[in-house]
């Protein structure tokens, strides 16, 4: 017997399917029903300079991560080092996106689960103050993205070689003026989440992976941190495609990534938090510790804790950036971008985890081949494995089982539109 439910309060279109035989759960299928858009094909034949605007549209929430990963790949391969001012501005845009994405997920999509509410409007009715505080932070992140990057989605101000323009100082000052109030609002929301008493605390055996340079909180780097069977290691980014494998299980409907030895792994805020806790600002650590939260987080439902502290830490970064911002007199970009034939690779921590891009450029300087590995495609095997572990020995109440499965998936904050590698496969038949 198969029980299916449409995924709600997630970005994009998907379903979860539980496969049951003789009263026991024998399979879990996270189905991606999102129509494919073939992005690897869309960038084929395009110039490197055109790639960022195209890949930005893979995701309506985390487009900056896509833009910056592509930009970084070409810059690194071409030996372009943007000025410090450019790097800081681009990281600020990425930070504003992280705030936006985390608030959207943690407060508007995920938090209703912890209050047994079925939607944002229901939560608004019950706790208007919480809603107002979340809104204050989200609306500020929008203004920040508009001032620094042009708009909330598909920002226009990042290019291969730099940025198109530096924001005007008066606009940055205006953003900074609102910061104390934003931090105050955010702390109210953080208080609600960090004091939740119904976040599961049991330990799940999670293998983690994050982009990590060893000295700053995971963001953009040329190494990948891998925790695997109590062993921790840093792998050079160039070996990423060697340590993971893409597989297509016969009961599944999507390509999913696993470690080369077949184990599933987790990317995203929880992985970043456990790897990078010591690089958080002292203010962030203080906030967290005052509620008794300490690393490591060991259960996927605790991802919301990592999202909250990352949001706070990013707001602190943005405050410092704005406090020190002066309109640079240097050129915002290196004008001549002419990729030579070769391979261009980069990885960024998108809000949901590792985002990996590889581009092959031909003799004419046009994209010949690309591989884009998204966070959700990497988390999919873990979603199924965790649901399986949680439900396999339990006496199955169908309604509750489906609800649990949906909640596990939601805790990952899946970005289904992003998972461009996911494909639809007819499931094998299972005896009822």
């Amino acid at each position, binding site marked *: 017997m198969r029980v299916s439910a449409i995924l709600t309060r997630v970005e994009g279109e998907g379903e979860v399917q539980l496969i049951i035989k003789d009263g026991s759960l024998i399979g879990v299928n996270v189905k991606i029903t999102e129509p494919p858009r073939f*992005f690897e*094909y869309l960038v084929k034949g395009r110039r490197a300079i055109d790639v960022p*605007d195209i890949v930005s549209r893979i995701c309506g929430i985390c487009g900056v991560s896509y833009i910056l990963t592509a930009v970084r790949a070409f810059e690194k391969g071409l030996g372009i080092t943007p000025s410090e001012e450019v790097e800081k501005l681009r990281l600020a845009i990425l930070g504003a996106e992280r705030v936006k994405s985390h608030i959207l997920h943690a407060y508007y999509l995920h938090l209703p689960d912890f209050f047994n509410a079925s939607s944002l409007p229901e939560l608004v009715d019950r706790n208007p103050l919480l809603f107002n505080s979340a809104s204050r932070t989200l*609306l500020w992140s929008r203004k920040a993205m508009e001032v620094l990057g042009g708009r909330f989605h598909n920002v226009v101000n990042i290019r291969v070689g730099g940025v198109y323009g530096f924001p005007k100082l008066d606009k940055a000052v205006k953003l900074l003026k609102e910061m104390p109030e934003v931090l105050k609002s955010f702390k109210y929301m953080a208080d609600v989440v960090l004091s939740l008493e119904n976040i599961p605390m049991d330990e799940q055996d999670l293998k983690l992976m994050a982009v990590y340079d060893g000295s700053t909180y995971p963001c953009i780097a040329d190494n990948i941190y891998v925790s695997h069977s109590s062993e921790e290691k840093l792998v050079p980014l160039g070996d990423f495609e060697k340590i993971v494998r893409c597989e297509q299980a016969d009961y599944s409907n999507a390509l999913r990534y696993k470690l080369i030895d077949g184990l599933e792994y987790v990317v995203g805020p929880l992985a970043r938090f456990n790897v990078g806790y010591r690089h958080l600002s002292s203010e962030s650590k203080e906030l967290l510790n005052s509620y008794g939260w300490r690393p490591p987080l060991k259960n996927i439902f605790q991802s919301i804790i990592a999202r909250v502290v990352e949001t706070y830490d990013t707001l602190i970064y943005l405050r410092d950036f704005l406090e020190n911002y002066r309109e640079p007199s240097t050129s915002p970009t290196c004008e001549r971008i002419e990729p030579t034939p070769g391979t261009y690779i980069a990885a960024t921590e998108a809000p949901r985890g590792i985002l990996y891009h590889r581009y092959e450029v031909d003799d004419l300087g046009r994209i010949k081949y690309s591989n884009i590995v998204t966070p959700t495609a990497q988390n999919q095997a873990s979603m199924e494995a965790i649901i399986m572990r949680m439900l396999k020995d339990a006496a199955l109440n169908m309604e509750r089982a489906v609800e649990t499965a949906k909640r596990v998936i939601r805790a990952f904050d899946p970005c289904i*539109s992003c998972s461009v590698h996911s494909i639809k496969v007819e499931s094998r038949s299972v005896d009822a």
Partner: protein
Amino acid sequence: MKRITVGVFKLTSCSGCINELIYALVKHPELLKLIDVKYFTELQDVNALTEIDVAIIEGSSIRSEHEEILKKIRELSKVLVSMGTCATLGGVQSLRIGVDVNEVKKYVYPNPEYVDAYNDVKAVSELIQVDLSLRGCPVNGDALASIIKKIVIGGWPVEVYESLCADCKRAGIECVVVTKGTPCLGPIVSAGCGALCPSFGRGCYGCYGIKDKDIDSGKIFEMEKALERLGLSRDDFYSLLKGYSMKLVKSLKI
């Protein structure tokens, strides 16, 4: 005031416009009192495909299943809105048009036979009657909020039809073509974004789509020549038109 019933549906797209809609609800929470949301999977758990006053659609159609869904939504709704560039004009996924979809599938997927998509990418209005088309990649959330409020009180938005250049003039932004010789699609593109790219010293790349009433293939050809002189190749110019204005590229036969 009677609340209007609303359904929000997603086809082939990135959810960027849907997130603009969520922003609109956050920025203007009074909207939540004016509308009764019947279908919106990103927002709520309980969803019903039922008769509604207003259907809002994000995304374009890439398979026959989408055409069936659209016909069903049209039957159920009084007013149907196409939200954003994908729904209104096709969207960036249209860049693959002109190549056999089987080739495209093979290029991306190891098991292309499992992927359901046809050769074309169709805007909503190529399939069913659309009452209101909103452009933008993404659509502007504040405009969206204002439109919803107007529909609730029985009004209708007034269309402003002008090119992006008007936005630049109003905002006092220096023309990037005149001052820097930067290729810019502004003269043939619909206004609506507030001239974002020129405000950062960058040429418009047309994400609101080309204008649909006074632009013919002759004018597109003139634009192509002008842009070529500024360094934008014919191929790159037509890619921008395909990526953000595909429905009009089809009707202009360019």
